[in-house]
């Protein structure tokens, strides 16, 4: 018998099984061999003969799930079935992936809100990127990865993963676990790799099968024999790969879900601490002391250690830190952990992680001010204001007093009201009240860093001038808790195991049957047909029947 197949698998895409719902008859289908198959089965469970096919085509068989019906193909009545069928479709799954892909791509056109250097995205995008930027913001693309749409998409992918996998793994498991060895010759000749060869009369059929089975066993096949039929199989593990990797992905998504819904599982805060200062960490019961924060540069004299534009390159950011916990009885801070925190080397205690994230050199800590009598030019004393803990009042010479009426560490005008942007003294501003024996009523004076206000205080008798700034470095630390990390990385590990099983192994099955002086060989694999053919040819060579399984050979026959 010759099989003439003209590159069928390439030019004509394989049949779309998902779209074919198996006719809709609610009766079991009986095969010629007498076996009664459940509804939706395409290949007889017993002998492998194709069912429900009008004309005997010579196209290779669709071997998916060995012809077993999936739940989504047989149950289509209740609403559960409808939901199930929707999510079990690979078409839907592919669309979900494509939508995620497109959204992710759109999300990279402009920077996301999280990373822009402004707290007012509504203004920022329009200002920086014009009309397109404004549209980007208004459509919601500027924060798309936190949008409900994206969350829903992830959830749908999760459901699709569960349903798709269950819908397929069950019939596949049943089919592979309950394989019959003797298959109909139709099943064998209609495999993609197949050969039918008349056995020469002088050849002993039993010996031929024995030799074949020995040759295949040498190639690490697991062989089962029944009468004059053989089933050689190896690498079944490969078939579970997709389901295991899907389980990994489901665990990964569950991890992400948990970090959102479980209180206390996720924390993302930051804290700035000046050299030598101790600060309470936000949301957690720890205190951190920044013993010293340093920034190290590469050798600036060596041009090879500079960036292309000649700028110095930072070698290291590091904070020597001590972590404390408050003793509930005494109220005193007790040291818990001590050590350096640097980029790539966070400090870890329990679930809490502290990352080196920022470094600000020479931040103003305190200012020294001088009070001067404009009339007499007499200097009435210097006083120091700690910008992070200013005293309410400063007493100077000659009974002069300076009181702080108002203090804005990070001064900004909002409308026409003064206010502060943050608690960091980036642009300190003060309203002072000066009192003294020579003044009938207190004098008010303003002081804003970097702004000349001489005009406002013109009428005042006393002026306050800056004499010196006291600066220190401060370090920016990220305060993180992510209790879902073990789940997330476990999921990813399982995913990787599944991928490796699926892609680096291959499932190969070879059916051999001797019937009516003919040797029927059919073989199937989930990938690497070339390797399968080569293996078959090598196995056949040993038996004295050199058969070719190459597609070329089949065409030439």
């Amino acid at each position, binding site marked *: 018998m010759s099989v003439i197949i003209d590159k069928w698998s390439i030019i004509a*895409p394989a049949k779309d099984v998902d779209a074919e719902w198996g006719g809709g008859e609610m009766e079991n289908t009986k095969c010629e061999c007498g076996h009664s198959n459940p509804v939706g089965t395409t290949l007889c469970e017993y002998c492998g003969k194709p069912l429900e096919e009008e004309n005997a085509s010579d196209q290779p068989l669709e071997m998916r799930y060995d012809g077993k019906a999936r739940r989504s193909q047989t149950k289509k009545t209740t609403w559960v079935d409808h939901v199930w069928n929707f999510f079990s479709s690979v078409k839907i799954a592919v669309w979900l992936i494509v939508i995620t892909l497109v959204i992710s791509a759109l999300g990279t056109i402009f920077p996301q809100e999280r990373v822009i250097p402004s707290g007012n995205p509504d203004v920022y995008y329009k200002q920086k990127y014009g009309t397109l930027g404004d549209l980007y913001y208004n459509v919601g693309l500027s924060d798309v990865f936190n949008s409900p749409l994206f969350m829903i998409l992830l959830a749908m992918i999760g459901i699709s993963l569960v349903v798709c996998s269950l819908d397929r793994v069950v019939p596949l498991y049943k089919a592979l676990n309950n394989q019959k060895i003797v298959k109909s010759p139709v099943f064998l000749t209609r495999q993609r790799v197949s050969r039918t060869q008349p056995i020469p009369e002088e050849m002993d059929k039993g010996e031929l099968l024995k030799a074949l089975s020995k040759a295949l066993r040498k190639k690490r096949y697991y062989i089962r024999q029944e009468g004059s039929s053989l089933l050689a199989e190896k690498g079944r593990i490969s078939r579970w790969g997709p389901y295991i990797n899907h389980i990994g992905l489901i665990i990964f998504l569950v991890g992400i879900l948990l970090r959102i819904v479980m209180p206390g599982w996720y924390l993302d805060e930051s804290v700035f601490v000046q050299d030598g200062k101790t600060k309470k960490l936000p949301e957690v019961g720890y205190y951190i002391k920044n013993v010293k924060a340093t920034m190290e540069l590469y050798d600036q004299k060596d041009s090879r250690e500079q960036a292309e534009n000649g700028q110095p390159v930072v070698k290291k950011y590091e904070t020597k830190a001590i972590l404390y916990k408050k003793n509930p009885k005494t109220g005193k801070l007790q040291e818990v952990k001590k050590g350096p925190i640097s980029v790539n080397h966070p400090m870890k205690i329990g679930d809490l992680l502290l990352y080196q994230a920022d470094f600000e050199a020479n931040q103003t800590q305190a200012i020294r001010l001088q009070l001067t009598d404009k009339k007499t030019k007499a200097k009435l004393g210097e006083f120091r204001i700690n910008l992070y803990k200013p005293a309410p009042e400063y007493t100077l010479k000659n009974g002069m007093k300076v009181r702080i009426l108002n203090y804005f560490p990070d001064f900004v005008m909002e409308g026409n009201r003064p206010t502060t942007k943050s608690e960091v003294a980036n642009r300190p501003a003060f309203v002072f009240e000066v009192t003294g024996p020579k003044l009938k009523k207190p004098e008010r004076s303003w002081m804003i860093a970097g702004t000349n206000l001489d005009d406002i205080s013109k009428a005042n008798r006393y002026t306050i001038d800056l004499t010196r700034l006291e600066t220190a470095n401060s370090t920016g630390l990220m305060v993180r808790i992510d209790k879902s990390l073990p789940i997330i990385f476990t999921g990813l590990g399982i995913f990787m195991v599944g991928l490796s099983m699926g892609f680096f192994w291959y499932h190969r099955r070879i059916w051999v049957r001797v019937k009516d002086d003919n040797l029927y060989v059919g073989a199937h694999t989930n990938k690497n047909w*070339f390797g399968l053919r080569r293996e078959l040819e090598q196995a056949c060579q040993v038996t004295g029947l050199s058969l070719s399984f190459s597609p070329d050979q089949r065409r030439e026959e």
Partner: protein
Amino acid sequence: MEQAMEYALLAAFFFYLFSTIAYVMAVTGKASRVGKDVHTQRWSRRGLVLAIIGGTLHILFTVIRIAISGHFPTSNMFEFTAFLCLSIVAAYIVIYFIYRITVLGAFVMPLAVIMLAYASVFPTEVKPLIPALQSYWLGIHVTTVAIGEGALAVGFVAGLIYLICWVGQGNRTHTRTAAFLEGVLVLLLMLVGFVVMSGIFSGLGYQASFQHSVDEKPVVEEYSMLPIVSPHDSKVSKVDSFAGLEKPLFEAPSWLKGEKAAGKLNTVIWSVISGLILYGLLRLFLRRRLYELLFPLVKNLDLEMVDEVSYRAIAIGYPIFTLGGLIFAMIWAHEAWGRFWGFDPKENWALITWLFYSVYLHLRLSRGWHGLKSSWMSVGGFVVIMLNLIAINLVLAGLHSYA
């Protein structure tokens, strides 16, 4: 030491080039004296040996560079692209030993040559690592990504061969596939054009610079190619004259505001123009479309086999890319930046690459997208990888813009 390193890479480049020539000889040579089969076998072996020697020299370059710099050379565009080139060669050698298709070499090796030439356009000096990169994950994460992408690139080449074969074997010159195929080949020519123009201008020591402002700060922008387009609202500081041109032809639109955006646009324009000129010359002198030119190399191939090679390369590359580009990436991001995923442009494009190949696999395994459709998908995947390599690093700013 440094000289040895440079010579090693230069030698690797030439060995890749010689390997390309040997492979083309293997597939096209007439060789009536020894017979076609012997000729093909002989030259194919030469091509393979040359490729292996090139790869070994490339590894030698990598080792010397590690010795000099103390870190794995995957920290900037030059280093990464050069390593990607090595990965492509390595992936090819692996695939060759599985399938032994000579023609594949005639297509992969020129791609390796282009890649290495593209890499050398970027500054090649050894530079110190910024704190975020100082981790053993630099070697692990980036190399795994590159190896994965190398295999995916071989999948792309096989897909391309499939398309050339499909169009040629069926005489489908007037199909859309033929037109798009020609388009993809022209895109590759533009990459060649970019490399050639960069070589010419840097060989001439060409310089031009403009003053303009970015975010209200004055900036001087340096051009390494003749400015066709100048930054928006800019003043010329200096423009070397070239081929009679002394002034930029037009100004970049106002929305193109990034710090080096106009210079990049200028480079893109040059790539497109030079690619099209190259294409025009080829058409003029050879009187054939590119795919017609390439078809004789592949005419004897079995489509089914080529399809399988493409899928196999992707099936090898996909898990490796996943491991490097997503899993290792997440572990390192968690260590360095305190979050395992931050939707940084580069992270996003790694995700997009991964999603794209996931779609490829689902359509292929579950919906029967073999052959033509599958080959187009493999081409699309490589376009995404190239977008990530070229466009994302250069155009979109983000945490990964190291070059």
